[in-house]
């Protein structure tokens, strides 16, 4: 495998996983917020579906997306099968429930009176939600990291809907599977190391952002906010 090919595979891996994570965030953040703050019939049922979705096996997602995008499938005329877009679709389906579920959990962990306090200070709904996000920024960034982690490391869906085509849809995980199947363990180990370093660097950046605002010991704040509820 040539150096240029490795860089092309690495760049494609980053590209599809970052795009899928961003789309998952755009879906999961508002949806998770709606679930956490809403009080409507069927909320627990939807949450249970989302929580199940957090454990969706990538191969099952890959199978369903492949059936949908197959040339004879319902969306076959879009000609997306074996393209990077197909991988992004599959990875978004994997990451969106993770981001949604962890967003809902992060906001539900806040003191429920905080909503009333913000409204009581004159916040509009939008201002209230923004401040709740700000307050839950550490677990929300953890949700983002979990979403990214779930897609950068998956292989089943990328293989099934991307096809592992050299120069077009080959990503790091599918390349590792291919090299292993050929007995090229050295290549496979090198690619695995690259994947690990890449994942580490992206999570390092997100962790830095996450921890930047966390300069103080929060134990005192926890004490203040845990006064008895009436």
């Amino acid at each position, binding site marked *: 495998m040539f150096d240029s090919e490795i860089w092309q595979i690495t760049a494609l891996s980053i590209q599809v996983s970052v795009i899928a994570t961003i789309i998952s965030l755009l879906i999961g953040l508002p949806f998770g917020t709606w679930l956490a703050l809403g009080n409507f019939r069927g909320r627990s049922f939807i949450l249970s579906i989302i929580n199940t979705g957090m454990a969706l096996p990538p191969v099952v997602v890959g199978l369903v997306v492949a059936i949908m995008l197959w040339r004879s499938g319902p969306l076959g005329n879009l000609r997306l099968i074996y393209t990077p877009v197909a991988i992004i679709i599959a990875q978004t389906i994997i990451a969106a429930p993770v981001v949604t579920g962890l967003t809902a959990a992060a906001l539900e962990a806040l003191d429920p009176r905080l909503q009333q306090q913000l*409204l009581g*200070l004159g916040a509009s709904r939008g201002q209230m939600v923004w401040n709740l996000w700000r307050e839950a920024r550490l677990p929300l960034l953890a949700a983002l990291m979990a979403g990214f982690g779930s897609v950068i490391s998956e292989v089943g869906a990328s293989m099934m809907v991307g096809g592992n085509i050299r120069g077009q849809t080959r990503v790091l995980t599918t390349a590792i599977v291919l090299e292993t199947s050929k007995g090229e363990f050295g290549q496979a180990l090198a690619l695995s190391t690259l994947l690990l370093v890449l994942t580490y660097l992206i999570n390092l950046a997100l962790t830095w952002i996450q921890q930047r605002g966390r300069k103080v010991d929060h134990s005192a704040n926890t004490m203040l*906010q845990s006064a008895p509820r009436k």
Partner: protein
Amino acid sequence: MFQIHDLIIQRNGRDALRVDSLDIQRGETLAVVGPNGAGKSTLLLALARLLNPARGEIIYDGKSLMQRNELEYRRKISFVFQAPLLMDMTVEQNVALGLKFRSTPKEEIQARIGKWAKQLDIESLLKRRAGQLSGGEAQRVSLARAFVLEPELMLLDEPFAALDPPTRAKLIEDLSVLLKEDSRTAVFVTHNLNEATKLSHRIAVIVDGVLRQVGTAKQIKTKPADENVKAFLQELPQ
């Protein structure tokens, strides 16, 4: 300022508060007393339009609260809870929060923070983060965050209940001075009749989800409206 008629507020599917009639005058401090779970906080939440009536109405300056623009109305009031509920930011940012919601100009925000930080003796805390404050300091910041809005109505829900007695006494003293100096309309929930007497013009007694009596401390002590009020007064520490 407020006229409440025939009001019923429900929480979790049951009646949590019934108020047949209650008027609150502009500039008045009304204390609301009663046992735990009596419905005192429910009255405050209803006045803040954070709970809607199941029956009856609250008239504010001649117009039903439900017919008023929710956000516009809420920006005339401020609410202080028992827990300080400060955001994970600096004291200064916390105090500025409500003003920022109202898009108040920066200079005005700074001027108001300066004024109220001095009044509530939190000037030295402004750059500290909320998580670094003691309970008493945090409650002062919570009060400053409400006073800085200079609202038409302040709603205070047992803001000192979680504090130790000396801190509590000092804060009540300070609040008493502020409310008198400021002539601001306030509704103040407390368990403590002495606090209520010190801070308010009139006292409302709520027992078992019903507003039983409204009057001065003397009227309530000498002529309790019914057996429920009498029993509540007898249970209070002398």
